[in-house]
Structure formats: structure tokens, C-alpha cells
């Protein structure tokens, strides 16, 4: 079968190609994305071929100047994550027949990462985040006797199988929407790894970890968009692990943050009226004594009032709200 591949090539002198996202790099920090140009190749491959087969065929038989990073070709090593048609995928796991759109497949280095050359992204931001969460176990005392291992229940390790499956390909970070506007965000891969260690019964520093992840750039800076869950080629579902970390952090007492206040205000409103009280949610989440941030929200509030979009001043409960109160009393946990 003939396949047309449009490859984003490194172009140190040119400007970012007009046909790239919205005429220029979008959104930040992609405005720092390296300039590129697109070059089209045609390859003849069997129907079952993947994007990486095409890239290797181009490099071997058509254009030896094409730079591409790959190793195992089996979705194990994590080397070949790149943008295929505008989203991060492993090139070795992406079938050409699935990805061919309007007669071609576009392949490029993710604009969210610096580019070394052609399809080879500089993964430094990824590894910095990975190391920042201390991806190792701090030995719990007392250590087991010599020649013996730490023993943990099977169930505790089964809980972590999903996170252990991570191959550090970086696909989740490449498409992370919070990272796109907030380069300081630890990101989905690092936080999923953080849970792998914080959730391990052999770790001695779980509480310190949870405190660190509750600060700026941590678990509360995730926008909950599920892009990482969609893009992860190994089913790690990083967002689900971030949510587990949020629960652990709140249980460990790290509650003095907007994320926890937001959850508490939300649940409180539903418990008392069955529905959300938008008037009190924002100020309660920001914190009543956080005057500076409260002031920041005022212009928007005035705009909404002027447009007639003010929620009712008297917040009414739904009919039958006692049912909701009873449910909270029964399974509400800390929201009781």
C-alpha cells in the first residue's frame, strides 16, 4: 500500500510553518517551539505497517538526513513518542491505516517540547519533573534482617500495577493541557509515578511527599481534562493516580489549599440544598481571608451581573432534599 507521510523537519532558519497549529505555535509554552518545515514522502508498505515502519523506511531508503529516535519497536522502551496528527502517540504502535487522514499522516516532534532535530524532542523538561518527585522508595525502618526482603501484601502491590506499567515515553506530558500553560506543573507522568511511591507500603516518606505534591505545580494544578488518560499507550491513566494522591493528601491533613476548600464548599452546598450554590463556591474556594485573590474575581462578577447572569440570591433547595442529606449522613465520609 502507498502511504503519504508529512514529516515536521528541523529548520533552524525558517519561521514556524504556516500550516502548523493556527498559523503559529499555540498555546504557550509552544511559542518557544522550534521552527520547522514540513516535507512529504511516499512509502510503499504492507497494510499492517505502523508510523515507525514508514519513518525507518524513509530514513533507510529515501532520506538519510531524517532524525528519528526509536529502539524496541514494540511499545516497551518509550523512545518513539511523537505527535501523530496533532496528538502524542508511540510511532511504533500507531497503524498507518488508522491514522491516514485526507490521504496523509502528519508526524512531528511535539511543539510542547524543545526540539533537538526533526522528530527528536529534547526530553529534559520531562526528566526534570520525573526526578523532582523522587521516583524511588525511601527505606522504611526497621529494615528487614540481612538476606531477607521487605514483605508486603499482594493486594498492596496489585493496587500499584497500573503505575508500574509506565514506560516514561512522555506522551501524557506532551499533550498535557495544564503543562501547555504552566511549565511549572509537575505533569501527569511524574505525578502518576509519585503515587506509585507514595502508595507503596514500604515507603518511609509518604507524608513528606504528599506535602510537597500539595504545593504549587502539584496535584491541584491538574485541570482534569483526561488528555493523559486518552494518550497514555500503556493504560496508566495518570489522572486517576493524581486523584488518588489528592485523596491521600487530604486524608494526611494537607487541606490548606484552594483545591480542598473547593471540594469542601462544593460538597457542603450539595449536602444542604441538593445543588450547587455558585454564589458562595468561588469565594469559599479562594478563601474568605485571601483578599487579593478575592479582588481579582470582582471584575468578572460585575460583568456577569451586568449581563443578567447572576445566580439567584436566595439559594433554593431541590424538592426532597432530605433524601440527599440522608445519603450524606450514610456515605458522606468527611463531608458528613
Amino acid at each position, binding site marked *: 500500500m502507498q502511504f503519504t507521510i508529512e514529516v515536521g523537519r528541523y529548520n533552524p532558519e525558517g519561521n514556524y510553518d504556516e500550516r502548523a497549529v493556527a498559523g503559529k505555535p499555540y*498555546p504557550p509554552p509552544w511559542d518557544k517551539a522550534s521552527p520547522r518545515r514540513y516535507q512529504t514522502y511516499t512509502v510503499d508498505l504492507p497494510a499492517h505497517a505502523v508510523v515507525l515502519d514508514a519513518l525507518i523506511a524513509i530514513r533507510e531508503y529515501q532520506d538519510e538526513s531524517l532524525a528519528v529516535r526509536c529502539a524496541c519497536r514494540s511499545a516497551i522502551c518509550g523512545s518513539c513518542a511523537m505527535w501523530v496528527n496533532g496528538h502524542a502517540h508511540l510511532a511504533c504502535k500507531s497503524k498507518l491505516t488508522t491514522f491516514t487522514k485526507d490521504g496523509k499522516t502528519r508526524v512531528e516532534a511535539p511543539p510542547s517540547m524543545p526540539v533537538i532535530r526533526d522528530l527528536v524532542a529534547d526530553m529534559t523538561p520531562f526528566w526534570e519533573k520525573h526526578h523532582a518527585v523522587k521516583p524511588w522508595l525511601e527505606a522504611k525502618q526497621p529494615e528487614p534482617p540481612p538476606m531477607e526482603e521487605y514483605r508486603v501484601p499482594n493486594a498492596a502491590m496489585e493496587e500499584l500495577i497500573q503505575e508500574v506499567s509506565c514506560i516514561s515515553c512522555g506522551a501524557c506530558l506532551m499533550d498535557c*493541557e495544564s503543562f501547555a500553560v504552566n511549565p511549572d506543573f509537575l505533569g501527569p507522568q511524574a505525578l502518576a509515578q509519585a503515587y506509585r511511591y507514595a502508595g507503596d507500603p514500604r515507603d518511609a516518606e509518604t507524608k513528606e511527599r504528599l506535602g510537597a505534591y500539595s504545593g504549587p505545580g502539584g496535584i491541584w494544578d491538574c485541570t482534569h*481534562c483526561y488528555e493523559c488518560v486518552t494518550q497514555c499507550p500503556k493504560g496508566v491513566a495518570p489522572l486517576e493516580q493524581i486523584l488518588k494522591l489528592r485523596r491521600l493528601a487530604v486524608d494526611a491533613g494537607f487541606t490548606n489549599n484552594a483545591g480542598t476548600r473547593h471540594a469542601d464548599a*462544593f460538597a457542603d452546598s450539595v449536602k444542604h440544598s441538593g445543588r450547587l450554590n455558585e454564589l458562595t463556591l468561588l469565594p469559599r474556594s479562594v478563601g474568605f481571608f485571601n483578599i487579593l485573590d478575592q479582588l481579582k474575581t470582582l471584575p468578572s462578577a460585575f460583568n456577569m451581573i451586568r449581563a*443578567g447572569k447572576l445566580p439567584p440570591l436566595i439559594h433554593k433547595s431541590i424538592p426532597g432534599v432530605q433524601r440527599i442529606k440522608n445519603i450524606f449522613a450514610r456515605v458522606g465520609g468527611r463531608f458528613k
Partner: protein
Amino acid sequence: MRVAFYPGCVSKGACPELYVAVNAIAEPLGLQLEELTEAPCTGAGVISEQNPELADALNGLTLAMAESKGAHLMTICSTCQGVLSNHNHHLKRDSARLDKVNATIGDQGFRYGGTTEVKHLLWMLFEDIGIDRIKAAIKRKLTGLKIAPFYGCYILRPAEYLGLVERPERKTYLEQLIGLLGAEAVEYSGATKCCGFPMLTFNRDKSLAMAGNHIMEAKDKGADLLVTPCPLCHLNLDGQQPDAARVLKKPIDVPIFHLPQLLGLAFGLSPEELRLDHHVVPTKGALEKVELKV
């Protein structure tokens, strides 16, 4: 067609124009809205992440209320759709979880049998109401308008819970609808991205940058307006747009329509009947393109 209508908190709170608009288009679409007035908030994912058992019970109660009406549960909010789909997906497949829910809501006189289908209005348009019915209701083609679709995360991801694996065409309904109404759909990468609303309270400037970037990308591609099936996206894209412009340090000025407002315009309703005069970003410029005034 009868539906168990779940309006969601925001259409009865900060986006009252959405509630008005959906009621206005129900008749031309042949929808009989039987509102679930006693159904609680879904928790918008916030309760699910902190206390999954509580969220299971609250959403199980809503699913049971719809089940007793013997009709689809219709949402008009991507977030409500996402949360209800998520819990419904698990309750239909995990009998232990369903039993737990039934033990809790059983005390309140309800039982969920696991048969409710949760469908956003956007899906119902194509899967239940049908293209022919929509075409028959059109009285005013929106020719000349360039419209950028904005789905909202929770109607797209995770695909597995939302039935997108079986029905991948759900990812294209907005574009199809825009074409059907006579307008042109703008292709841009922001259509399927996050509006930033979930982190508005934690990280305001980053949230607004997210919203602003997507609108600006659509504007650069020629969009006269954005249309969204999610009122939470609307709150960030419209309600916070002047602040997003301050964060980006450039003017934005792109109106954001709710899905039912766009349908209503094509069905010949006036902008006032659809409350298009109750937006933070004026809709005037876009309406003038189809020779309408507010």
C-alpha cells in the same frame, strides 16, 4: 419523544439563558421535557474524586429517577454528561458497586436496575431525533457564519465511559450540526481541548490563559463565534473572557453560543427568545452576519 430532563445546576444558576433556550427548542424538535426536579447535582467530578462511594449514590439516585420514568436521561451539559456516564458505566458493569448504591438509595425508596441511557442533547439530535426532523425545523439558514465548535472535555474523554468507542461519530456531531444549519465549521485544534474551568479557583491566570488561547486560535482561523454544549465551558469562555483578554494582553471579543441557542436561531426564534442578549461578550456582531439584531 419523552425524555427525563436533567438541566444541571448551571442552567438554573449562572447560565439561565441555557435553560430558557433548551425549553424554546424542545417543541420544534418534538421533545417532551420531563424535568427531574428532585435529582441532585452530579458533583461535577469534585465529589467523585474525593468520595467515589458518595458520588455513586448521588448519581445512582438520579439514574434511578430517570429509570422510573422509562425514558432516556437527557443532559445539556458536557460535565453532567461525563460524570453521569462515568458512574453509569461502572454501575452497569460492577454488581458489587451497584448493590452498594441500592443499599444506600434503597433507604430513600429508590432502586437502580442499571438500564438508564444518559444522553446529551447533542447526541440525541443525531441518534434519536434525527437529521430529517432537524432539517424540517430549520426556518433560517445560518449561511455566512463561521462557527468554531468547542466540545468540553467530559463529553469526549474518557472515550470508554462515553460510548465513543462504539460510536466514534459522536466526536464529529458539532461539526456536522454546524454544516446542517447552513454555517461553516472552523477547524482548529482547540475544539477538543480544555476550557480551563476546573482550575479557575486554584490557578486563575493559567485557567484564563487556556480559555483565551483556544478562543484566539478559533478567531485567527476566522470564527465569528464558538458554540459549546457545556455551560461550564461557557462560564470560562464567555463569563471570564474579558479577564482572559487581560491575561493574554490582547482583545478577544468572540461571542460564545450555547448549543440550544444556535439551534433556536436556525429554527427561526428571535435572539431575545434565546436570551442571546444575556451574555458577557455581546453577540451582536455575529447576529448581524445573519441579519439579526439584539
